[in-house]
């Protein structure tokens, strides 16, 4: 990607994010206390985006943001009132802009003419012409003449609200007037709204400059006089002289943050370098150990040990710091989801209360981005299929409003994200029927409720009778599951009829560098991420039993299904009486993987397998061991997946590992 294009996208995305926050604020406040500054700021964002895209030659985005700018202009000038429809329309077009910006990313041409025309007709249909109070006669003509249309609108709106309109005369020193005026403006804004700043032309001593500041306020004249120097004239009496609670200090626009924006690719490169340094560190350590075997504890050996320990500590620090830089709060993702939930629920006429927990929970930026689509899919499913229509809910004695809870928390080195709805739950019988119809399940196989529900994650499964507008996009839960698996995480679902469904996504906090167990099978070596393993055991082959075609081993009285890695990968191995087993997975997804030998623990940097081997499932990637040797890293989730699928008789449609 060209740098300029990247810059454009980064800046445009920032603007769109800001705009989204502002539209959300408008949505939350327009019925009670909409701050005109928010509309104005949104208007300015669109203006900036227009300029930006014009500069980078994106005509379509320029035109669309221009059209939106005009719409927002109508809104800020009071020609169009903010309503539910207006807010939804803004969200809709924000989406259009976002996908247009995404289009730039992928070099896709987009035709936005339809959106632009729609905005045009929307403006026409909404415009009623703001009829405010007649201000002629109330306010001196010489003042009205100078007001811009926006200022006039704000003046009328404030009079309509029953606010008092005041004119403050301030004579200031010419050389420093902007600073003094800024202070004065701050005071005025704490008391009300500044409408116009008009420089005076006459009767001003040399070296000075005078201003007439017109502002609206609920305060009494006497109260205002205490706070402000200069003559204050009452233009319009306030209709409510109620003493108002002190308004919060206007937040300064001056940025106090010291942050910079960094391309995630650059951080990836630093992490890769750290990974390679880790290998170098291991080599130094190994050399130290080898020398120690020959020289015992000579000062030289001690030195090597000391240096390699320092090396190790500092490297770990550096790694932690870089990983921390990559962390973002999940709230960023939640607010995007919140937007979708609010809009879609309204579109299909379902009322939904949204609750967010744990927005501060942090996870790696790249993981956060990867998790958006799966979450979006789950949320859409909940709105569409989970939450029942209002009448049905009433009949069941539930609240008319459905509820969706997004919750996130940290659990060890994992982040858990839960999406809970209080809908109808997943219908087990329906799922079973469908699975049989689709040929995913043999009719005569008896499955437990949990296993049946897990069938929704099977490729090719979908209970939808009619594809709906929202979730009918040809993506199934299988895609969600697969995505989580490639991220090194897993998906679970808990459902109860008529009470609702919870989807739980668990994924590691960071990617990149992981601790792994290196194992040997025949002549091959594999790395197993430690996060996926719970323990290792030595198993005598005679203790392995066969139950219903499954090999199992009893560990502390609990049954553990056993699968041999040499069978999975069809590797020749020596015959022996016993093997080593790595216990992977959790709960009922526990599995023992048999290997020939444990070679030890190591930190590894997972690298992708590249284009040619991309479709191969069963492997998370490859890693270097530091001895100029490359080994494959197992994708434990998909191994478990395949093994369990095999056992319950589901014929997996994916290619990759074959089971012998």
């Amino acid at each position, binding site marked *: 990607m060209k740098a300029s294009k990247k810059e454009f996208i980064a800046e445009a995305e920032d603007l769109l994010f800001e705009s989204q926050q502002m539209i959300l604020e408008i949505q939350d406040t327009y019925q009670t206390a909409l701050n005109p500054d928010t509309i104005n700021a949104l208007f300015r964002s669109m203006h900036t985006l227009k300029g930006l895209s014009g500069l980078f030659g994106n005509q379509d985005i320029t035109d669309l943001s221009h059209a939106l700018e005009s719409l927002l202009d109508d809104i800020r000038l009071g020609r169009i009132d903010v309503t539910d429809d207006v807010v939804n329309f803004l969200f809709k077009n924000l989406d259009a802009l976002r996908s247009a910006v995404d289009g730039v990313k992928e070099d896709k041409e987009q035709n936005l003419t339809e959106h632009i025309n729609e905005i045009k007709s929307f403006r026409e249909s909404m415009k009623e012409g703001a009829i405010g109070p007649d201000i002629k006669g109330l306010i001196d003509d010489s003042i009205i003449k100078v007001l811009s249309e926006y200022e006039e609108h704000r003046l009328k709106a404030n009079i309509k609200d029953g606010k008092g309109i005041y004119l403050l005369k301030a004579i200031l020193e010419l050389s420093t007037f902007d600073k003094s005026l800024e202070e004065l403006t701050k005071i005025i804004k704490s008391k009300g709204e500044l409408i116009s700043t008009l420089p005076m*032309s006459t009767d001003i001593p040399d070296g000075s400059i005078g201003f007439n500041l017109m502002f609206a306020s609920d305060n009494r004249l006497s109260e205002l006089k205490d706070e402000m120097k200069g003559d204050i004239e009452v233009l319009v009496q306030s209709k409510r002289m109620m003493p108002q609670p002190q308004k919060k200090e206007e937040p300064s626009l001056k940025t106090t943050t010291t942050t910079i924006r960094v391309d995630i690719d650059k951080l990836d490169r630093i992490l890769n370098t750290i990974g390679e340094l880790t290998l170098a560190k291991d080599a130094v350590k190994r050399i130290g150990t080898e020398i120690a075997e020959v020289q015992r504890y000579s000062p030289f050996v001690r030195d090597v040990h000391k240096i390699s320990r320092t090396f190790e500590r500092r490297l770990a620090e550096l790694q932690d710091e870089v990983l921390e830089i990559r962390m973002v709060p999940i709230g960023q993702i939640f607010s995007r989801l919140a937007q979708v939930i609010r809009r879609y629920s309204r579109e299909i006429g379902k009322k939904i209360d949204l609750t967010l927990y744990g927005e501060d929970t942090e996870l790696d930026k790249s993981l956060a981005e990867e998790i958006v689509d799966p979450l979006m899919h789950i949320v859409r499913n909940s709105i569409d299929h989970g939450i029942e229509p209002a009448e049905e809910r009433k009949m069941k004695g539930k609240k008319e409003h459905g509820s969706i809870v997004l919750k996130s928390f940290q659990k060890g080195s994992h982040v858990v994200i839960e999406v809970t709805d209080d809908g109808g739950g997943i219908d087990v019988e329906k799922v079973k029927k469908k699975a049989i119809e689709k040929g995913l399940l043999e009719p005569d196989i008896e499955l437990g409720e949990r296993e049946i529900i897990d069938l929704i994650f099977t490729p090719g499964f979908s209970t939808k009778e009619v594809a709906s507008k929202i979730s009918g996009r040809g993506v199934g839960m299988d895609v969600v599951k697969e995505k989580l698996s490639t991220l090194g995480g897993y998906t679970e679902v808990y459902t109860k009829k008529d009470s609702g469904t919870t989807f739980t996504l668990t994924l590691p906090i960071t990617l990149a560098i992981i601790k792994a167990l290196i194992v040997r099978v025949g002549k091959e070596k594999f790395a197993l991420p430690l996060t996926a393993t719970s323990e290792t055991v030595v198993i005598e082959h005679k203790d392995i039993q066969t139950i219903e075609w499954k090999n199992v081993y009893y560990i502390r009285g609990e049954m553990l299904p056993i699968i041999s890695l040499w069978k999975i990968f069809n590797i020749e191995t020596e015959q022996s009486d016993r093997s080593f087993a790595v216990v992977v997975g959790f709960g009922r997804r526990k599995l023992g993987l048999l290997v020939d030998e444990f070679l030890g623990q190591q930190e590894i940097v997972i690298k992708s397998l590249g284009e040619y081997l991309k479709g191969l499932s069963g492997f998370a990637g490859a890693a270097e061991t530091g001895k100029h040797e490359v080994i494959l890293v197992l994708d434990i989730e998909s191994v478990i997946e395949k093994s369990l699928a095999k056992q319950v008789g589901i014929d997996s449609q994916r290619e990759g590992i074959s089971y012998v």
Partner: protein
Amino acid sequence: MQRERRSKSILIVEDSATTKALIKAIVEEMGDFNTVEAGSGFEALKILPTQEFDLVITDINMPDINGLELISFMKNNPRYNNLPVIIVSTERSEEDIKRGMSLGAMAYITKPFKAYELQEVIKKAIVYEGI
């Protein structure tokens, strides 16, 4: 037109750096003009007393004081009331442009404009005012 020895001074008041630079380039292309830039109404108020200007080109929608307030200030001040003003604004601000004209601006041009269009307007202002 260029009989006087002093080159003409033009004050450009515009908060958008891009538009400001564009106007400056267009003006300078016309020949012997000395341009001074102000990024806001406040800045213009500070610059105005410091030197003699022959023409002011101003935007309307700006933070702090807007173009209308600036025009009103100049037109009511004996020191500046003969100074011609050209408004440069977007077509969306039609109503504001009208107000500016009634306050005493001599011409306006709407964004986006072509270089020659602005130059035409400036030429007319110069001929009309005899500067």
